[in-house]
């Protein structure tokens, strides 16, 4: 419990530090907004459209496969930790698990979604 409490404390301290610096910066910085500040620098072209451009579709499929393998990794982690106790039996299990998921990867690959055109 206690070691995790340390993590928690770290978390809160981390957040606190960030918030504190923001707050501090607000205190000390001069505030003088004027229009020219928002204009393009030197000879730059004015931007066309929004900065929120549409991502390529492929990003999504990569992210998706990432998620699935992220979950797989999460399954691997406790397996690795407990492997000492579990032995060969667990190895077979995990091989089955990975093979099944590898088929997914293979499928995605064959479907050509992993190709970056």
């Amino acid at each position, binding site marked *: 419990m206690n070691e995790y409490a340390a993590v928690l404390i770290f978390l809160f301290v981390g957040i606190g530090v960030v918030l504190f610096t923001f707050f501090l910066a607000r205190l000390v910085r001069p505030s003088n907004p004027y229009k020219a500040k928002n204009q393009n620098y030197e000879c730059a072209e004015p931007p066309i459209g929004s900065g929120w451009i549409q991502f390529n579709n492929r990003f999504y499929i990569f992210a998706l496969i990432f998620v699935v393998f992220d979950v797989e990794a999460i399954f691997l982690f406790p397996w690795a930790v407990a492997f000492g106790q579990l032995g060969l*039996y667990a190895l077979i299990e995990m091989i089955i698990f990975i093979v099944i998921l590898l*088929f997914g990867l293979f*499928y995605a690959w*064959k*479907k050509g979604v992993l190709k970056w055109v």
Partner: protein
Amino acid sequence: MTDQNWSILIPEIFLFIWALFIFGLDLGIKRKNPKILGYSAMAGLTITGILLAIFNGGILFKGMFQSDQLAIFFKVIFIGSAFMAVGSSFDIASEKIRHHRGEYYGLILFSTVGMMFLSSASELITLYIGMELTTIPLYVLAAFYKDDKLSVEAGLKYLIVGAFSSAILLYGLSLLYGLTGTTDIVTMKINLSLVFLSYGKIGPGLILAMIMVIAGIGFKLALVPFHMWAPDVYQGAPTPITAFLSVGSKAAGVVAFARIFVNGLIAFASDVMKPLDWGIIVAILAAAAMILGNITALRQRNIKRMLAYSSIAQIGYVMVGMVAASELGIASVGYYMFIYLFANMGAFTIATIFNDKTGSDGIISYSGLSKTSPIFAAYMSIFLLSLAGIPPLGGFAAKYLVFAAGIQAGYTWLVIVALLTSVVSLYYYANIIKTMYFSAEEPTIKIHPSFPANLVLLISVIGIILFGIFPGPILDWALESAKIFAF
């Protein structure tokens, strides 16, 4: 763990590998002939059925996987409905599904695998995973016509409501887990009895859990008021998938329901446990389903929507047998689902074929079908009459058994509602028959189903008539499967 009989997993494993094989086939072959995929899917399902006959009976993983008679019985229904769904898909597979044909069949098989696991699950975690494994491929399948607005909308509605209900189900399961301290259904039963014995009462928390589980499974069953998605999804999804949804997926819900309630919470089905009686809740929902489903179906002009409402009503009838929570009750439910498999798959197959030919789902466009395609009009009439419960077709014996079980269990009012609504139901079933036979309009459409669709229709018709006149074998089997609950 070495003494365990691993062979009972073979059917599931085989079907899973076969699904992968179909993916591979689709990816591997260059000249794509959609028929090869379809036939191989049908072959796979057939082989699975055979394997099921060889490898069954046993328990694995400390009871998480039970290959008992109930599971086998329902697995046959799942495989049958998948087989028929695949069989009726040949035409759309060659025309409408230009991409991902292998996935189409593969996902049907995946969903079937999920159902098979679900029906064998006697433990909440496995049950939940089985449920998801059943549903997730179906989300994708419902939206399989990606360019078709209706199909995608159907998929989306199914997905959102499905995920919502899945969350509610999970909450219910978590409460069950908390109340009983176990996820194993049999242990759950024992623990509850212990608590009941030591405290004299269990408190209303259990009813909360029950209601949420009912809601979660009610989604799969399309039980009122958890049915709202069904008409839209049925209408929009590719018709074979609609058929699969209405039979396979419902049967999966039925078996999950039976496992949790009839097995685990059986003690609370009686009047003695008045405040905790799930029977009365389900009975009221079933009555609502029969009334609403049948009445709303009256004014439908789209055959798939009509069949959707009809299937909402049908599940109400099934639930009459379920609330009886007796050996006869469960057996009648099994028999009902078995006949329903033939009748509903058959009706949807006709709808699929018809839609291929005419592009229409309107009931009115069936006018005069009896003149151009008398055989198919006759088939359709048989399916609809069976759904309506006209003897000597299977639907009659099914309804009779279910009602008998209901009366035996003291749910006379429910049976009266069921009988009255079945009078109403006849109206819209007869309406289609009337349109097909008694229409003065000159028909132009003649339908020519592909060989597998013909096969599906033939199997359905024979099944309905044969098992209607000789319900013996199926009923005996269903009774045997009901025995596992040890009433």
